[in-house]
Structure formats: C-alpha cells, structure tokens
C-alpha cells in the first residue's frame, strides 16, 4: 500500500518525505528504569501524527523531553532543521513548538480572555519598562484581543469570555488550553492526551478542532492511549511500548500490526492458560 508520508515501507524509525521533527538516540532513565529509549523517529510536517501506546509506554516522558521540560540522559533532536536538545522550555515554545499538558493547566484564577492573551508571544507590554506605559502596548493588546476573540468563537468558548478559567468544565478547559496554545500560531502543536476526561459529545468537537488545525497548516502531534479515537483523525501513527517505538504506519495498517497488538494486550494473550500449565 502506497503512502505519501514515509520514504519506503512504514517501519519503526522510517524516514519521512518532509520531517519537521527528527529525534535520535533519546534515552531517559529513572534510576534503573529506562522510560524512553527512542533510536530514531521523524514526525511528518503538516500532518496529524498520533503517538499511541499503553500506559507507561513513555509517551508523556518523550513529550517532556522534546519540549525541554525534562532532560534526557542522552540524545539529540532537531526541529525545523535546528538543534533543539538542551533548549529551555520557553525557548522551545518561542521557536514555534507549543505543547499542552495531560493534566490541564488552565490558569484558574484568571479569566478565559486573560488566559488567551497570555498565549500571544513577543508582546512589547510584557517588558517591565514598557508595561508601565499603556500607550506603548495598547494597540498590540487590541490586536491580541481580536485574535483571542476569534479563537474563542471557533472553540465555542466566547460565551465564557469573562468567566474565571477555574469555573469551566474539564472538557472546556482542554479546549481553552488548545485555543491558548494557538494564540502564538505554532508550527507544531503537541497535545498530551487532549481527549482524556472529556465527555463523548465534546470529544467529537475536539477531534474536529484537531482536524481544523491541520487544515490551517499546523503540524499536530498528539498523545493518546485509545487506539480507536486515533483512527478517525490521524494521518500517521507511531506506537510506543516500554519506551521504544515498536511500530509506525497509517492508522488502518498499524492497528493490525502484531507488535501493536502485543504491546496492548501482551504477547501471550492468545496462549491458553491450560497449555501453559501443561507445558510446565
């Protein structure tokens, strides 16, 4: 089956036609436990890539490493051709790689619109000396507010504009966090379990929003452990288990991969317990 994303056959660590993020030899150990051990992986540009795997596969840890929130024992990675290993999280974000968190980090004691405004980068008014004089940042603030209102409308949060983020439901907070991440027009948005704890009705609209991001030219990488959720929206799926990339491919194909089934269900799930006993 032909695909326009990978060069050659889809296999763990395969080369992509147009990669935006390339990671090599990323290892993170916690004491004796190797949480992440990714030899080589490439994320295709302009696509929706799902990073899936069972609990404890190292997906979130890998996310934290790539975005600078955690330091690897070894490894290098480049984003848009520039080396990104060892770069501080805020600088990673400034380069256009914005992440969200598994446990939503809405800023609860701030209003929804203030949350959104905070997402905009390179604000002159965020400099201490400029901040004292409103005329310096007034125009910029109006533009930011306009962008924020447009995004809120798109994410159907405009009615909540003046509410404190802490008063939103879990699903709405996920939406807010995603909308806030978009304020800076990222090249790559990394969503850590955007669907976790969201009710089914809202899940559908979240999925639509993720598709909408791709249509807007943003590359999406998201973590999910529910394989069926992934099938609907992703162009490419990378499967992690026990810290390694065990499979890659288009969603329909990768779900049938033996390594994936083993990772999710255990390698011996078909083995009859009776025969195991006899064999002993």
């Amino acid at each position, binding site marked *: 089956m032909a695909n326009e994303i990978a060069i050659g056959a889809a296999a763990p660590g395969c080369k992509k036609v147009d990669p935006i993020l390339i990671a090599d030899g990323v290892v993170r150990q916690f004491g004796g436990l190797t949480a992440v051990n990714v030899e080589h992986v490439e994320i295709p540009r302009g696509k929706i890539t799902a990073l899936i795997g069972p609990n404890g596969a190292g997906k979130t840890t890998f996310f934290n490493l790539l975005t600078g*929130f955690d330091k690897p024992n070894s490894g290098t990675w480049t984003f848009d051709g520039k080396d990104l290993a060892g770069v501080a999280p805020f600088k990673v*974000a400034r380069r256009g790689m914005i992440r969200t968190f598994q446990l939503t980090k809405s800023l609860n004691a701030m209003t929804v619109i203030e949350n959104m405004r905070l997402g905009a980068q390179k604000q002159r008014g*965020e400099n201490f000396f400029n901040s004292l004089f409103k005329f310096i940042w007034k125009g910029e603030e109006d533009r930011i507010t306009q962008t924020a209102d447009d995004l809120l409308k798109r994410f159907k949060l405009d009615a909540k504009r003046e509410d404190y983020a802490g008063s939103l439901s879990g699903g709405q907070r996920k939406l807010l966090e995603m909308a806030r991440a978009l304020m800076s027009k990222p090249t790559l948005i990394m969503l850590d379990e955007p669907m976790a704890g969201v009710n089914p009705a809202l899940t559908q609209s979240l999925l639509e929003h993720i598709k909408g991001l791709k249509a807007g030219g943003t590359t999406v990488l998201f973590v999910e452990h529910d394989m069926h959720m992934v099938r609907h929206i992703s162009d490419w799926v990378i499967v992690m288990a026990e810290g390694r990339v065990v499979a890659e491919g288009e969603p329909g194909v990768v779900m049938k991969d033996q390594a994936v089934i083993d990772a999710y269900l255990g390698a011996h799930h078909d083995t009859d317990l009776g025969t195991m006993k006899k064999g002993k």
Partner: protein
Amino acid sequence: MDLISIFSLAGNALISPMTVGYILCAIGLAVHFGYTGLLNFGQAAFAALGGYGFAIATLDFHWNIWGSILFGLLCSMGFAAILGIPTLRLRADYLAIVTIAAAQALRFYVGSSTAEPITGGSAGLSQFGQEFYNLNPLPADLTFNLGTVSLTSGEVWIRIVAWAVVVLAVIFMFALTRSPWGRVLKGIREDEDAVRALGKNVFSYKLQALVIGGSIASLGGMLFVMSSQTNQPSNWGTNFTFITWTILLLGGAATLIGPIVGGMVFFALMTLIESVLGIMVDAGLLPFLAVEQVAQIRFLLVGLILMLLVIFRPQGFSGNKKEIQFNG
C-alpha cells in the same frame, strides 16, 4: 484614659510612619506573593537593607538624601538578586526557607561586633535624617492636634511624605498589574509550567518580581527608620515579616488597596486593644493581668482575629474570592 484619647491614639496609628512602613512592605509582598506566588518570608531583610543602606550612605559616605535613597534601593535589589538567582529555579518552598534564613542571618550580622564600625552593632545607627527634616517646608512652630495627640512640624512632614510614597506606590502597582507584564506574573502564580510552555522566561519574571517587591519594601524600611531616626537590628526580627504577612492577608493579597486597608486596620486595632485592655486592668476587671502584660496579650488577640479572618474571609477585606485567597 478617656475615649477621646483612645481614639486619638488609634487615629494616629492609622497614619503613622511606622504603619506606612509596614504598608509599603505589604505592597512589596503583594508583588511577591499576591501576584507572582513567591513565598517570601524575609521581607524584614529587604526593609532593613533600605533602612541600613540609607543610614550608612548618609553617615559614612556623606551622600545627599537622593544618593542615600538610591543606595538603600540598590542594597535590597542586590539582596534580591543574591537570593533569587540560586533559588527561583527551584520549587516555591525553597525560596521561603532561604528568605527566612537569610533575613535572620542578615539581622545577626548587622548586630554583631564585626559589623559594628559600619552598622553600629546592636545599638544601631541614629541621627541620619537631618537632611530629610531640613527639607521640611512647613513652619517649624506648626503643631497639629489629632484629638489629644499633638504632632510637631517634623512629624506632620514625615506623614505627608510617607503617604505620598504610598500613593506613588499604588499608582506604580496599578500600572504594572493591568499590563501584560502583570498578566505574566499572575500566570506564574497559577501555574508556572503552563506559562513556560507559552514561551515566557519564568525565571526572569520571578526575579523581576522579587527585585521590585523588595525595592518597595526597602522604601518602607527607610520611612520606618526615618520617623525616629534610629535603625536597630531589633527592628527587623521575624515578627516584622509576620506582621507584614498579617497585614497583606488581612487586606487581600492580590489587590491594590488591600495592604493599605490591612495596615491601617491592623495598627488601629492593636492600639485600641492595648488601650482598652489597659483601662480594664486599671479598673481591676482583669485581675489575672498585669499592666506590663497588656502589650503582649494583644498579639494573642490579633492572632485570634487573624484565625477567624482566614476561616471566614480568606480573601481578606478587599480581595476577590475567585481570584486569590489564603488557603495555606
């Protein structure tokens, strides 16, 4: 003591330079804790550095008043940098430990015989405010009567200056907190990782907040020592820091006028309680209390009031419960 003198004393406590000193320290603490979420338990040290910096620049360097103010500010800024650079990258509790320890270390140091040639040791420094009182434009024979309390020309002058500084500090805070810069601080208070993920240099903002809050506190320290023209290590104990915290929480941590309301209420209340208890002891209504115990017992009552406040009104007098409240 009659009612008029009780209320005169309380009225004077509302506007005294000491109250203003604490109010400015509480405004500084509002920048630290209320807006940025930094747990600074060493506010006394920032105020002390303001007081000592000013006094030393005047007495030893023979600088004029403006140079002395600047030196006091620079001392506390330097202190903020020394404390902040190693600890602000760590979790919030580390700053709390380091600030309380550093404030105590500083107080013991300035009171030691080693530092005596500069700081005056445990006796401290005095008579450094001549130039300030020379600037007084009010007639020298002016007296102002506040009920039974009579204020001299110099005492009126320092009260005017002190409150002018408070007004300027509030305007400064207003400009800062409505700006995008203030928004980043509030974001850091809520969740610094989220703010990091949005591309803000959290460490730099925390350091800026520490320096600015410390500078406001050092102005408070200067006014505090200016009224009596004495600056002693015993002024700057941990109780100074905790009274500042009480004032901040009383008024509301993330508000502009909270520290002012908190400071005025706190000191008026302290004075009222002391007077009322004094009268009751004199009248033999409290046989278990001696007159000299009154000053101590009022701290117990203030502690009780603070507890009730935290239980029933954790956002303080002027705080917004949705925005910030004291939740330990």
